[in-house]
């Protein structure tokens, strides 16, 4: 038979029905014989019941509309960033390099700073305008 300390450490799992059958039997057997541990089990059950005294909160009426609005706003920002700002910045950077560093922009197939920069924008969906745009620019630079 396990000692009281070991049994008490198992009491929470015992109450929550989380013990394997063999350990469960051991605990049950011990509780049948040990009044102190049985009292401990009883007070733990009382505590668990007591925790039900915290009432549930309901979300405010605006919770769902506010959440959906947050998503819509994020989608809008993401679209502008992904389809307009990022390609525009990439194009500007490329144009800048072409004007001020033309030799670098057109040398060493695919290894130029411009291409290296453009390759950092490789996470557009394959069919998106941005992706086509980037591939066109890359094609030009190579």
């Amino acid at each position, binding site marked *: 038979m396990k000692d009281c300390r070991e049994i008490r450490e*198992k*009491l929470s799992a015992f109450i*929550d029905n989380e013990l394997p059958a063999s350990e469960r039997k051991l605990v049950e057997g011990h509780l049948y014989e040990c009044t102190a541990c049985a009292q401990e089990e009883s007070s*733990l059950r009382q505590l668990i019941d007591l925790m039900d005294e*915290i009432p549930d909160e*309901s979300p405010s009426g605006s919770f769902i509309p506010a959440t959906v609005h*947050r998503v*819509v706003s994020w989608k809008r920002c993401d679209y502008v960033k992904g389809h307009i700002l990022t390609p525009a910045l990439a194009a500007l950077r490329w144009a800048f390099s072409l004007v001020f560093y033309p030799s670098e922009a057109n040398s060493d197939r695919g290894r130029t700073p411009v291409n290296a920069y453009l390759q950092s924008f490789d996470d557009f969906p394959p069919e998106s305008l941005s992706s086509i745009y980037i591939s066109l620019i890359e094609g030009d630079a190579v």
Partner: protein
Amino acid sequence: MAEVAKGDLSAFREIVEGYQNSLLNYVYRYTGDRTAAEDIAQEVFLRVFKTAKEYRPLSSFKTWLFKIATNLCLNELRDDKMHRNTVNIFELNEAGFVALAEKRPSPLRELENQELSSTLKNAIQSLPENQRVALLLHKYSGFSYGEIGQMMNCSISAVESLIHRARHGLKKQLTPYL
């Protein structure tokens, strides 16, 4: 989730409707702040939408959702000056639990001055982070020890120990009610 991954807002709305109560109550009991809880819960749903394409049903959707919520709550508390010493429970392994018990006013004083539910909330708030997470996920969100272990990256026996210690801690503070 497949529909949400395609950007379907009505599918997303269904998910929010289905989980808003359980998620809000979890976050509220975790943070103890009703206003912050609503804001964090909305942020959790936004992250679900943002990362829907990355979701792989290795565990249940609910487990995934509550793991996001727990991480966000931890970050929120970490940003809070009142909780400078919190750590990410997901960075801990089963041997590395850190006791983070906070200094609270005397439990007896609290019991004298506050209603039961308020006392309970405070007692829960005073538990170390990892004990509080395990206890709340089990008691109020209905997760099994195994599911909690998945979320916290620890073994079932570690979860068992966390919940046991959490209840032991609560029992000490709530003795007059038992």
